[in-house]
C-alpha cells in the first residue's frame, strides 16, 4: 500500500501550477485541470450508496412489515440490527474479506448492514404513529388488514419512513468513503491516495459532502411530491 501511494504521488502531480502543487497547497487550477480523475470514483461512490440503500430499504421494509404483524419481533430485530450498526464499518469490511473476498460485494454487505437499524426503526415509528382514528375509519369503510396497511398506514407513515431513508443516505455516503479498504474504490480511495495534498483532499472530500447533500435533497423532494397532504396541513 505504501509503495502504491508513492507511485500515485509521483505520477499524479504533473499537471497544473507546479509551485502550488509542490507545496501540497490548495490549487484551483490543478483541481480544474485534474477534475476528470474524480469522475469515476464519484460514480462508483454513487453506485455503492444507491445499491446499498436500495437493498437496505428492501430488507428493512420486509422486516418492518413482519414486525408490524408480530409485535414480539420488534425487540430482537432492533437488537440484532443495533449490533450490526455498532460494528465499525472498517472492521466489518475486514471481517467479511475471508468470506466474500475483495470487491463491491463485501462493501455493499457492510453498508447494507449499517443502514438496517436506521430505516427499520423509522418505518416502525411511522407505522406506530398512524392515528388510531384513521385506522378505525379505514376499517369502518370495510378495508381488509392488507388494504388498511397499503392504503392507510403506509401512506401516513411515509414522512417518517423517508426521513429514515435520508439519514441512511447521508450516513452511507460517509461510510462508503471507507469502502476502498474492501477493494470497492469510491471517493475515499482518492482521499487516501494523496492525503497530504490539500487540493486532492478538499476535492474528493467536498464531492462526498455534496453527494450526501444532493441525495438528502432528492429524497426530500420525492417526499414532498408523494405526500402532498403534509404541506396542506402546514399551510
Amino acid at each position, binding site marked *: *500500500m*505504501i509503495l502504491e501511494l508513492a507511485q500515485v504521488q509521483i505520477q499524479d502531480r504533473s499537471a497544473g501550477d507546479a509551485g502550488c502543487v509542490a507545496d*501540497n497547497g490548495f490549487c484551483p487550477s490543478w483541481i480544474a485541470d485534474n477534475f476528470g480523475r474524480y469522475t469515476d470514483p464519484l460514480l462508483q461512490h454513487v453506485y455503492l450508496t444507491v445499491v446499498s440503500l436500495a437493498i437496505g430499504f428492501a430488507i428493512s421494509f420486509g422486516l418492518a412489515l413482519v414486525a408490524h404483524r408480530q409485535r414480539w419481533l420488534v425487540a430482537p430485530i432492533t437488537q440484532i440490527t*443495533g*449490533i450490526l450498526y*455498532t*460494528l*465499525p*464499518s*472498517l*472492521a*466489518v*469490511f*475486514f*471481517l467479511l*474479506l*475471508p468470506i466474500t473476498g475483495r470487491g463491491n460485494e463485501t462493501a455493499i454487505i457492510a453498508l447494507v448492514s449499517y443502514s438496517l*437499524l*436506521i430505516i427499520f*426503526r*423509522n418505518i416502525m*415509528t411511522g407505522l*406506530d*404513529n398512524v392515528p388510531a382514528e384513521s385506522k378505525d375509519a379505514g376499517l369502518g369503510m370495510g378495508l381488509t388488514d392488507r388494504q388498511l396497511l397499503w392504503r392507510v398506514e403506509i401512506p401516513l407513515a411515509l414522512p*417518517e419512513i423517508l*426521513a*429514515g431513508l435520508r*439519514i441512511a443516505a*447521508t*450516513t452511507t*455516503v*460517509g*461510510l*462508503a*468513503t*471507507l469502502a476502498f*479498504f474492501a477493494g470497492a474504490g469510491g*471517493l*475515499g480511495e482518492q*482521499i*487516501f491516495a494523496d*492525503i*497530504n*495534498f*490539500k487540493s*486532492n*483532499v*478538499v476535492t*474528493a*472530500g467536498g464531492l*462526498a*459532502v455534496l453527494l*450526501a*447533500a444532493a441525495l*438528502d435533497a432528492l429524497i426530500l423532494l420525492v417526499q414532498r411530491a408523494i405526500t402532498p397532504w403534509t404541506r396542506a396541513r402546514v399551510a
Partner: protein
Amino acid sequence: MSATYAVLGQFGDAVRFIFEGETTREGADVGGSQFLDLTWEHLKLTFAAMGIACAIAVPVGLWLGHIRRGNFAAISLSNVGRAVPSLALIAFFVAYLGTGFTNVTLALVLLAIPPILTNTYVAVSQVERDTVDAARGMGMTAAQIVRRVELPLALPLIFGGIKTSTVNVIATATIAPLAGINTLGDPIINVSGYGDTGRLAAAMVVAALAVFTELALGAVQRAVTPAGLKLESDTASRRMRFRPGREATT
C-alpha cells in the same frame, strides 16, 4: 491450543494472533501484548476526544435547550455532521494542520460534538413546560432549574448522544494511523507490517471494543435514568414525535 483455533480457519489464526502474537520476518514482535499498547492508544484518543466534546457540547446544549432557542442550528449541525465523512475530516486535518495526537483529537472532537449537542438540546427542550413552571413557582433560580429539574430529566437522552458519539469515535480512531497515531487501526492501515492475519485480528478487536462500549454505556444510560422516567418509558416512546433521526431516540 493451536488445534482449537485451526478449526476456525483464518479467523482462528487471527484469534491466535491476538492472544499469542507473531514475530515477523524482520524480527518485529506483532500481535499479542503489542495489541494492548495499540488498544491503550486507541482508548487514550477516544477518552481525550470524548472528554473535550462533552465539556463543550453538554453545557451548550443545556443552555440552548433551557432558553429553548437554536432548534434550527442544533438540527442542522447534526445533519451536517452526518454528511461529512470521517475519512474526509481526518484527511482535512492532516492536509491543513499536519499529523499528531492533538490534531487527530481535534478532528474526533468535531465528529463527536453534533450527536451530543443535538441530543442534549432535544432532551432539555422536551422537558414539559409545566414541570419547569412548577419548579419556578417553588422559587428555584434558573441555575437550579437546569441542574435539578432539566438535567436529571434529560440525562437518559444525553447519555444516548454520548453513547452514539463514543462508538463513532472508536470506529473513526481506527483510521488515526493515517495521521501518525498508532491505534488499533495500525494493523489495518499498515498491513505490510502485520499481514492479513494481523489485519483481521485488529478488525476483530475493534469490533469487540465498539460492541463492549455500546453495551457498557447502555448500562450506564439505564442507571442514570430517573426512576420516574423508567415507569413511563413505554408511553413516552409513543409521545416523542420529534425525532431527528437516530440521536433523538435513546
